[in-house]
């Protein structure tokens, strides 16, 4: 079956949102555009918009390839998505609050207790703890795929520490520099306000101990982390400190940073360090990245941690398949956005089905990320399938399976002109006193013809994503 092409209806009829862009494109010289693409790459290299690849010599810094054909969404398409995302993040926060308090949803029999109690992502330390402002997951990157005109699925909720927002902003910056005329012809909603909204959101959830204007800091694992560029970028754009664990200490019940003038308290930490490394006194004792004692300070209202520890339980792949029930339970309404149909291999009937249909399915590890440890049935060899089947039988509860989705395509620029490639979408959502969704997001694109893997660590690229005003 031919996947849904977001730009073309037929070979020379384009969908409405692309009309002006396509007109413009036809007037361009393809070779000159190719040169522009080279310029964009040099620009990224110079500004250091790179990510580190683990396991390569000296943590080599790589570029995420940027394709200059924008992905364009009409107002109506976006509004419906935004409504669905808002409903979903409200449910996620309510779910987290419930899990760490009364667990009504388990009592109601909607989510099995075993998925929570035995789950590493569920933190006992968070039980009974209500974060400042009642917000657990402040920053969310909802991964969405499209398979038809009006068919969108949520692939993942990314409620821990989603990354990629810096590319959303830099991609737009690059496009505006290279093709300013496109932005006078099209009414594109801005995304560069994100750091401003992020700062406001974080300031909104300051802890009780905060006096005056909240002091905010971004906590990074350091320059060798794959997303270091983004951490520095966000701190810079927000005008807040970029700190590492060694810059701060717990002093007098507050988390304080070592400045040239002595120690100064921090009120809100936007941490880009995983739960396990956050507090060596409570979690992984070997962590050099965290802040000893921060959990005690947190419990006593001395600091806000965004996102809160323990939010990973909400975007766990084992929980994912229950999201429709979760959304309905907390919002009282059916979920606006659908889940991808999912087989839980922990259940015998499902496992049987999955093993019989390996060639058609995508099988993922429950705790995996970044496209590793998964099997893409239709492109796997018989041997690979058999190897995976063995792993699956050994530990079925570690896996879920989903049908191979015919992801929608958007054209990319190739030597001869345009060629369709599969894409997904990660819009970014901020939660504090209200939910703010930045119109746009990060479109990831599989650059290889026919490939469905959009991850940047495996040959994916990115595109600027436009949401039109009208």
């Amino acid at each position: 079956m031919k996947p849904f092409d977001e730009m073309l209806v037929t070979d020379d009829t384009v969908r409405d949102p692309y009309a002006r862009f396509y007109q413009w494109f036809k007037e361009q010289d393809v070779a000159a555009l190719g040169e522009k693409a080279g310029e964009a790459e040099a620009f990224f290299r110079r500004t250091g918009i790179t990510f580190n690849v683990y396991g390569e010599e000296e943590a080599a810094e790589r570029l995420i390839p940027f394709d200059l054909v924008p992905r364009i969404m009409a107002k109506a398409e976006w509004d419906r998505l935004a409504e669905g995302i808002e409903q979903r993040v409200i449910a996620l926060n309510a779910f987290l609050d419930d899990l760490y308090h009364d667990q009504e949803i388990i009592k109601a029999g909607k989510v099995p207790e075993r998925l929570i109690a035995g789950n590493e992502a569920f933190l006992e330390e968070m039980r009974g703890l209500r974060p400042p402002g009642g917000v657990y997951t402040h920053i969310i990157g909802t991964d969405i795929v499209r398979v038809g005109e009006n068919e969108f699925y949520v692939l993942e909720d990314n409620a821990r520490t989603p990354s990629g927002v810096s590319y959303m902003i830099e991609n737009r910056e690059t496009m505006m520099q290279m093709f300013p005329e496109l932005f006078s012809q099209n009414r594109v909603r801005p995304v560069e306000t994100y750091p401003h909204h992020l700062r406001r959101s974080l300031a909104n959830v300051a802890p009780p101990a905060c006096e005056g204007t909240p002091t905010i800091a971004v906590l990074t694992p350091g320059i060798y982390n794959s997303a270091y560029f983004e951490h520095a970028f966000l701190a810079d754009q927000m005008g807040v400190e970029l700190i590492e664990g060694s810059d701060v200490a717990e002093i007098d019940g507050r988390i304080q940073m070592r400045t040239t003038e002595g120690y100064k308290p921090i009120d809100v930490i936007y941490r880009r360090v995983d739960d396990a490394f956050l507090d060596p006194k409570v979690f992984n004792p070997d962590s050099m990245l965290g802040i000893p004692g921060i959990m005690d300070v947190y419990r006593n209202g001395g600091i806000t941690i965004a996102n809160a520890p323990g939010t990973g339980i909400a975007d766990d792949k084992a929980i994912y398949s229950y999201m429709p029930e979760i959304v309905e339970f907390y919002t009282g309404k059916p979920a606006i956005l659908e889940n991808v149909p999912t087989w839980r291999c922990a259940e015998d009937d499902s496992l049987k089905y999955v093993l019989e249909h390996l060639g058609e399915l995508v099988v993922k590890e429950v705790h995996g990320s970044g496209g590793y440890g998964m099997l893409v049935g239709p492109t796997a060899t018989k041997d690979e399938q058999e190897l995976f089947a063995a792993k699956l039988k050994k530990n079925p509860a570690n896996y879920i399976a989903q049908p191979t989705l015919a992801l929608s395509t958007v054209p990319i620029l190739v030597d001869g002109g345009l060629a369709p490639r599969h894409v997904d979408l990660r819009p970014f959502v901020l939660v504090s006193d209200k939910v703010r969704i930045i119109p746009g997001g990060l479109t990831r694109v599989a650059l290889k013809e026919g490939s469905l893997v959009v991850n940047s660590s495996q040959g994916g690229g990115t595109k600027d994503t436009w949401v039109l005003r009208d």
Partner: protein
Amino acid sequence: MALLGRTANGLFWMFRYIERAENTARLLDAGQRIALTNLSAEPEEWQSVLVSAGVETAYKAKYDDFEPENIIHFMLCDRDNPSSVRCSFETARTNGRMVRTALSRELWEVVNESWMTIQRRLSSRITASELPTAIDLVKRQAALIRGTFYSTMLRNEIFDFCNLGAFIERADNTARILDVKYWLLLPEHSQVGSALDDFQWRSVLRSVAAHRSYAWEYDGEYRAVNIIDFMMLNRRMPRSLGYCYRVIKDSLDYLDRNYEVHQPCHQIATEMNERLAGLTVRQIIDNGLHEFLEQFIMDNNRLAQEIGWNYRFYPDR
């Protein structure tokens, strides 16, 4: 906005390493000139280049000879030598990346681009005939960074910490160059008018980029006392110890005023600055040039350490 101690440390070292890279290149330039004169005992000349750069021990651990090609490679390109030009740019850039939120966008981009350029150029051995263009490239990249720094950075404490790193490193380098050649500048050694001495002196001046400006200041005649005066006490000469200490003291003055605290490092710098201002060349020579320089290098290091403590460069846990 408060400045993190770690950030101040990163700024300080970023500029120390840029300065070090440039000085290393200038030392090689001077060494090459002497070698081309065919007048000197060449191996000693190259050896003194290694000593001036403070990398003799590391070099000897790797090589048994003083082959110019090996020395050039070691000081320019070798990744085993943390003070090689290539490594210095790498360390400067790593520090820059760590503190990029404190840098202007232009400055960060120039540091990053210079690093890429230098890595590309110095990734393979440089032959003697390629040396002049390679040295030129290093000097240009350093000048580009410095120019961008002066023209785009806010004059605040960030600027002061960068300057402190640059001038502490520069003072150290000038003192080392002088110390290695001090015997040449003592009255009992200098044969006025000898061709070798002329070349030697010019090479010392060349290594601090001052062979022409010396002529403007002292009417062209090479005299030991004038060269010492120029490199140590002359406040118009941007690589002299006196000039470096004026900038260092000014920077610490600004920091004291900015933070409204009187720090111990300020006291040390003030004393060193006054010592340099109150001395004549004659007094320095009479009390021992080598002794003076040795003490100066130690005091300069102590000041760098004190700055690190006073401004909390490192965690105290």
